[in-house]
């Protein structure tokens, strides 16, 4: 075999091998990404994010815990406003307790404390509790929509959807 021929052979060899490995690598990566995608379900069966929470006249001034266990929401009536307060601590996602004697929400995990309004005042919580979208249906029932959040620090609590005037 002459030197040139050997050289050519080598180039040919190299290009076939490159194609092979690139295609093989891409196909394997494709398979892996399919497997990755597989782990994200397309539908889920978690509880409804929207629910009806009775009528406005059901609520007394203060914190109402009726919808806390089923839907994770405190209904709070304060200063003529009714709002739906998230029960998830803004620190690390524990569920604070409502202490009626002290008029505050206290998180058992790291001691964050919130006022009735949801504003944090002690412990490590970085920001106030979130409020959910709340409005009245045509029949006068309260509808809480948990997909829409209102955050105090963004000035969203004044949004007309963040509270009901009662």
């Amino acid at each position, binding site marked *: 075999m002459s030197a040139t021929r050997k050289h050519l052979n080598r180039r040919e060899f190299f290009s076939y091998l490159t194609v092979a490995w690139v*295609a093989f690598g891409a*196909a394997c990566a494709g398979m892996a990404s399919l497997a990755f995608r597989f782990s994200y379900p397309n539908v889920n069966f978690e509880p409804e994010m929207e629910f009806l929470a009775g009528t406005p006249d059901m609520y007394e001034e203060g914190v109402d815990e009726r919808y806390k266990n089923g839907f994770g929401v405190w209904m709070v009536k304060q200063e003529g406003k009714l709002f739906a307060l998230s029960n998830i601590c803004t620190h690390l996602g524990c569920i604070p307790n409502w202490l009626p004697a002290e008029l505050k929400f206290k998180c058992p995990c790291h001691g964050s404390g919130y006022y009735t309004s949801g504003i944090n005042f002690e412990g490590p919580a970085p920001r106030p509790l979130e409020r959910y979208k709340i409005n009245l249906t045509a*029949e006068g029932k309260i509808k809480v929509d948990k997909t829409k959040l209102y955050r105090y620090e963004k000035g969203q609590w004044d949004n007309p959807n963040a509270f009901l005037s009662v």
Partner: protein
Amino acid sequence: MKKLEPGMAYKTSKLNKIFAFLSVLFLMVVVWVFLDDYIRPWKAVQIEAIKIKKAKLEEKLKKVEGDIDEKRLATLQTQLDQASKKVSTRRKEVFAIDKELKQVLKEIKSETIINGTLNSQVSARTFLYEQVQVKIKKVIAKGKEPSEGLFDKKKAIFDDLKSFKGRFLASKDKMKFLQADQKRLTKQKLALNKEVTETNKKIKEIVTTKELLELALEKTKMGPIFAIRNAPFVDFLDPTLKIQQIVLENITDDRYFQQVPKVDRCITCHTFIDKPGYEDQENPHRTHPKLDLMVGRDSPHPMKKSGCTSCHSGDGHRVNDFQSIAHWPEDKEQRAEWVKKYKWHEPHRIATPMLKLSQTEASCVKCHQGVEHIPGATVLNEGRQNIEKFGCYGCHKIKGWEHKRKPGPSLYKIASKVDKEFFKNWVWSPKSFNKHAMMPSFFAQSNNSKPEFMRKNIAEVNAMAEFLWDKSKSYRPFMKYTGGDAKAGKELASSVGCMGCHGMEGAEKVSEKIGAYAGPFLSGTGSKVDPDWLVSWLKKPSHYQEDTIMPSFRLSDREANNIAAYLLSLKNKEFEAKRFAPLDRSARDEVLLAYFTAFDSEEVAHAKLNKLTDRQKTLELGYRSVGKYGCYSCHNIDGFAGRSPIGPELTNEGSKPLTQFGFGIQKEVEHSRDGWIKAHLLDPRRWDKGIDKPFQDLTRMPMFYLSEREAETMTIAIIGQVNDKIPLIGVKQLDAREAIVEKGMKVINKFNCVGCHEVDGYRGDILAKYEDDLNEGPPRLVGEGHRVQLDWFHYFLDNVYPIRPWLKVRMPSYNLTDEERNTIVTMFQYKAGQKALVDRSKIVNWKAGEKQAAKELWEELACASCHSSGFNQDEPQAPNLFFARRRLRPSWTKKWLKDPQAILPGTLMPSFWEDGESQAPDILGGDSEAQMDVLVKYMYDMGTEKLPTKNTKYWSKQ
């Protein structure tokens, strides 16, 4: 062979080439997997839906834009400019306020920090203080004296706490002042900006709909963001095209081992099913056609509570293709269309394919159980009425139908009613006597017309007649037919109310319109019954049969004879001429022998047979034949009490696996449950066609000669009988009120009250006869429980007297038990939501001048001109008001006076207070309410406490 490198089986270059080829192939396959997984039919449907939505929004937007008053908008715009200019002159002031506000905000923030610190200090010290308290208490509890140090500590902490509390409260106070400042300043600032804000508000009012529509339109854009969100692989982040589902906790799917909450994903493709405004689209993009009853948010069956397949059936879990859901086409055209469009084929291996669209109502029964009538389910109700009409429940047990009476008349005393010859010919072919007969035909059908079978059938019919006559009890009519005026009889029969239950020969058209089925169609009666029996029956039906539902019309002897004369004049000569073949003893013995050999050997059977006398043989065959054809299922026959009905139970017919339906060799019958049932109803004997069956195995279900429509509606009612276990919370539960009403409805249906009276819009069949003037027909009962007093009602049902003597149609006297009467009365009471009794003593309490005014009003409105009974001798046109005191409720009477048309549209009672305007403005100052009140009082004041009897002269005051 080419030279290889040492230690090599193949050339490396060749290996590499193969490797490259396979890798590329592999890559292509992987790409295919991506695409295969990504491309799902429902995505295309959803994209189509977005396009439709977009088009709709654009259309709306155009309309809204057209509606906007451009001129006004322009003026407002200039106003806004002016306002801005004006406001900008106040810049200095605004600036000053802003500065102040900034200062206040700063102070608030700093005070918040102080406040927060103090608050935590207070909390911490409170805790310490409580701890010391507890310590002291514990020491005391041990009976010891706490040390001085402990008290000192307590005091120190308390002082500390007190001082912090004081500071905390001071800080809180300061906060309040600061916040008030902030509020004030903000208000001031706003006031300075007032003109601009207000103009803006006005502009917004005009354009807000437009802006909202534009916003919605923006969402339907399919731009690059849309593409990325729905791109393969990244579509787990937040896709817009996704599977939508409804999870129902209160309705379950049967997994045989377990009930599992139903999951319906139909809305993935039927995107707009619950959204009004898409009625004009083709499926799947169409709005549900009955949004106010089904699916709609405010309907009684909202989508999220009722789902889709709970009514439509089918496999709601599935979304991947049109086929897997088990869609089922309505008819041949749709089938052809689907085959072309979706490559549709009949679903295999799916327990519950979708119901045909026209049969969806079948599912109502799943949840609405134990009711006579399901509002809104028109076709289903019709089917159920047909089941009642043809008495399917007699032979086939259906849960919820147990209370129904036997569909056929009792045969206990048959011998005194018809003669044997008639009986045999009738049983052989009921339709040849009366083409409206509801009795089905067992004989001379497609599967038993062979001479050999006919011979045996004739023997059976003869034997049955002998058997029944043998069992028949004697009955002697209490009246003699003395002859009468047939013409007057016809007149009376067609007007007195017979037609509420019976069709009548000579009035076929009207009969068809009424569609009565509670009693037999009166045709050929003269060829059928004994004259004396007929008169007695007409006069007093319960004399012949204690539990008959046929009421007495309180006919005089003359009237009874006249009607009898008419009915006897109806003859079927052709039928009378028929002579039934006599008993063929050898055929009888053959059939009997077949019965005996079923369990015994030939010899034993012969011996058994020979032991019997000739008469015994005939009676034995008669007994067995009545059992074989199940006559006892529809008729009361002595000796068969307690036998279970002959047909298979239909309670769960709609869930029977398709493979268990015997389609035989009937290839033209559609291979589905409803296909089989309908074919079976139309011709039950068809399954025997082309099959050689022995005599005793022939299909026995008789021929009903149903119309296509009847068969279709009955099929729908039957396929709704499924065994889906719906949890209690999912089933329509009757509340106490509804349960009582339902109980009453059963009685009302039993006695066919609804054959004449329309009860709150339900039936009132005979009214079809009075289309021209409803007031000539039986009164429509609207809110009857509100209209009448219960004690009167109770009395009336037992002692019927004429209330509207000018009507030709008569309220008959029923043979009701006390319980039935009570049930009816309470039903009306609960239906109208009324209290039981009216305290009549409290109705009339005159105030000064009222009675005079009432009298004037009475005269002015000329009440007595129609309600003439008791006032003059004119022919009355309205009920006697002297008896209203016991009969009517005051609250209803006032409502009636106010607007009679609202209660009974088309009534002759005039509205004197139309739209609240009195026609007598000078009485009581023209106050309509007061006028009605006094008139009601007046009526009760003059009325009598006595209850009339049937002999009371209806124009009397007593």
